[in-house]
């Protein structure tokens, strides 16, 4: 997808956030907004993607580890830029074969001209010296030969495959931060999820791209609904013990479970407030299951809802901290509701079907949720991921005709959503851009579900 270059994109010193916003507004006025425009604007995906090339990095050491680490680094950087949602990445097949190791070696023309036609090019070198991997990376504006450098970075870590990936993620996130309107990239974020790989549903963690999976809990009991705290220090989740379901807490700092005084009854589906000081959850400590809010240490618990039917899956408005969305069954099939955290101003957001698993976008504008609009025995249609603009209640469907989709969770950049897709009764974790494009599986073959994207 080759695009005419807007001059504005050459001026990287401008605030690109403003740029994207103004382009989107202009596009909306001039062409009449299609269903996708409000989504692309609100999710920072922009109206137009920057064409960028990622050169293979030059190997600049004789150490035998060099080729393997370079291969990993190149693949990871390419993948990160491709996943970012704001780039039109020059494919490897038409990119120039050169591997410029430094600004002195790059011929900007071969990157700027057809067929690559790149506006931006990332390049550099990778060396392994004395057990350390040293990466020098640059980002150049290919159409501004007078003053091309946008970014120059050097990384030095213990030489390992994990660190080759880590360094690539860091460099990718720098590029995304510069070119993506000042919004942090997500290449260094993590996804927490439930996996039955060990035989029991335990809490697991992986990098945002599905690499680096590791098992967090070893409880031997069914554990569900992991939610990581905003500072990445703890994971709250629900676990089935002798007394039923309770909320448990795992310290990622101490690498062990820590005490959390969970209320009695079936208590589950924890959600952190954006400041990390409070938890909302569902509990049957009274007759019906209701939504409660308490301090992160378990104290000061109070009910938010008092409605008939199950009330589960609360999520905070991360922007204001003063509203929650949740799933309520007061009218029969579950619907998405919104209320202030004192229980006032209750609004029903969905108009029927079977709606569950809300996730609030980082900018506070959208809810993503799972919806089966024609739910019922024998009814056609499936359970798909939707997003809704809260103010207007406009919604759009992101997944179509592909399995049963549930548990969307926003990435902190507001551009990505991770979700669970069950096909042939096997759930796996997938990710996509928030406009529904670039759907891809992150896990394979292990009964993986209920993903939760870290806050940073």
């Amino acid at each position: 997808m080759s695009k005419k270059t807007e001059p504005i994109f050459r001026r990287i010193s401008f605030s690109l956030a403003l740029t994207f916003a103004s382009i989107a507004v202009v596009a909306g006025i001039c062409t009449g907004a299609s269903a996708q425009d409000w989504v692309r604007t609100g999710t920072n995906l922009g109206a137009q993607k920057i064409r960028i090339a990622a050169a293979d990095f030059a190997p600049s050491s004789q150490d035998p580890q060099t080729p393997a680490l370079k291969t990993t680094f190149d693949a990871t950087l390419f993948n990160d830029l491709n996943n970012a949602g704001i780039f039109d990445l020059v494919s490897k097949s038409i990119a120039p074969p050169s591997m410029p190791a430094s600004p002195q070696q790059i011929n900007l023309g071969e990157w700027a001209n057809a067929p690559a036609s790149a506006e931006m090019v990332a390049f550099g070198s990778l060396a392994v010296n004395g057990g350390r991997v040293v990466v020098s990376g640059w980002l150049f504006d290919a159409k501004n030969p007078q003053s091309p450098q946008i970014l120059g970075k050097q990384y030095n870590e213990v030489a390992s495959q994990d660190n080759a990936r880590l360094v690539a993620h860091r460099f990718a996130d720098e590029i995304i931060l510069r070119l993506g309107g000042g919004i942090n990239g997500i290449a260094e974020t993590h996804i927490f999820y439930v996996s039955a790989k060990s035989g029991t549903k335990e809490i697991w963690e992986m990098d945002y791209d599905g690499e680096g999976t590791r098992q967090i809990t070893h409880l031997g009991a069914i554990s569900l609904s992991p939610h990581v705290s905003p500072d990445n220090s703890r994971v709250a989740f629900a676990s089935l013990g002798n007394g039923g379901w309770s909320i448990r807490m795992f310290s990622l700092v101490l690498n062990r479970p820590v005490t959390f005084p969970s209320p009695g009854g079936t208590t589950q589906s924890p959600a952190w407030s954006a400041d990390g000081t409070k938890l909302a959850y569902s509990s049957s400590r009274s007759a019906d299951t209701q939504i409660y809010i308490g301090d992160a240490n378990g104290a000061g618990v109070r009910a938010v809802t008092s409605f008939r039917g199950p009330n589960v899956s609360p999520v905070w408005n991360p922007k204001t901290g003063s509203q929650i969305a949740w799933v309520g069954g007061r009218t029969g099939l579950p619907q998405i509701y919104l209320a202030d955290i004192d229980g006032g101003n209750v609004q029903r957001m969905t108009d029927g079907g079977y709606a569950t698993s809300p996730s609030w976008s980082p900018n506070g504008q959208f809810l993503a949720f799972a919806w089966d609009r024609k739910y019922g025995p024998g009814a056609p249609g499936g359970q798909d991921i939707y997003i809704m603009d809260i103010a207007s209640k406009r919604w759009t469907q992101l997944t179509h005709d592909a399995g049963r989709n549930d548990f969307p969770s926003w990435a902190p950049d507001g551009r990505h959503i991770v979700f669970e897709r069950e096909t042939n009764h096997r759930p796996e974790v997938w990710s996509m851009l928030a406009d529904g494009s670039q759907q891809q599986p992150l896990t394979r073959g292990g009964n993986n579900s209920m993903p939760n994207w870290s806050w940073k």
Partner: protein
Amino acid sequence: MNDFALEMNNMDGAIPEFSQNEPTKRGITLRNYCRLYLTSLAIFAALAAANGCKKQTAPPPPPLPPAMTAPAPTATISASPTVVNPGDGVSLLWHTTNATDVSIDGIGKVPTSGTQTVNPTSSTNYHLVARGDGGSIDATTRVTVNPPMAPAAAETAPAMSDDASFRQNVQDVFFDYDSYDVSPENQSLILKDAAYLTAHPMIKVVIGGYCDERGSTEYNLALGENRASAVKTALVAAGVGAERIRTVSYGKEKQFCSEHDESCWQQNRRGQFSIDR
């Protein structure tokens, strides 16, 4: 523990009169069980001896005059009293005519007429069969044994062997799709469940709430909780103490049936009873 339980069950199977409706005993020890076993052997021995005695001392019935058509036998049997507490003695009285061979189920061969004292531990039908040249006839009397008094000792708590009885008498409750309402049919089912639980006051129950595989995990956990809780509420309304009932939701995490069709889904939408130990 499992092996032990299995052994108990096997022993139980070997001595049917101590099995099903035996007063519930929690934590019964092997020693206690052996005591029961020996007691029962003693009763058997006594019965056998008594029968043997009577057989030896009673004169053989005089040969009947030959007749073209032998008259049909008649038989009656009665018990006094007909309602007792466990272990109390009951007098059985029976009378037959034109019979040469009379037996009572569970006792064996008996004289054509007579009385005998029995000590049933559970409600029992005493079934007498009288055979003669003119054919055979039977008669039955029932002795009802009251449920055990509220026991105070651990000895009277439910034994593991009561699992079968529990499963037979306390039936699971099934729900409509996405509902936790107890239907009228389920209401009458729960009344029966409650009657059993009232009769066995030492049994504590845990109600598991289950959902079919459709729907969302967290919502189903809450729905399962509401199902279990609805069954608990109905049991409490029927007189079962709330402190004896615990609820656990399994949502769709544990399924009874793994096919993907409505009959299976219905199996999975249930409130399941089990003994809470």
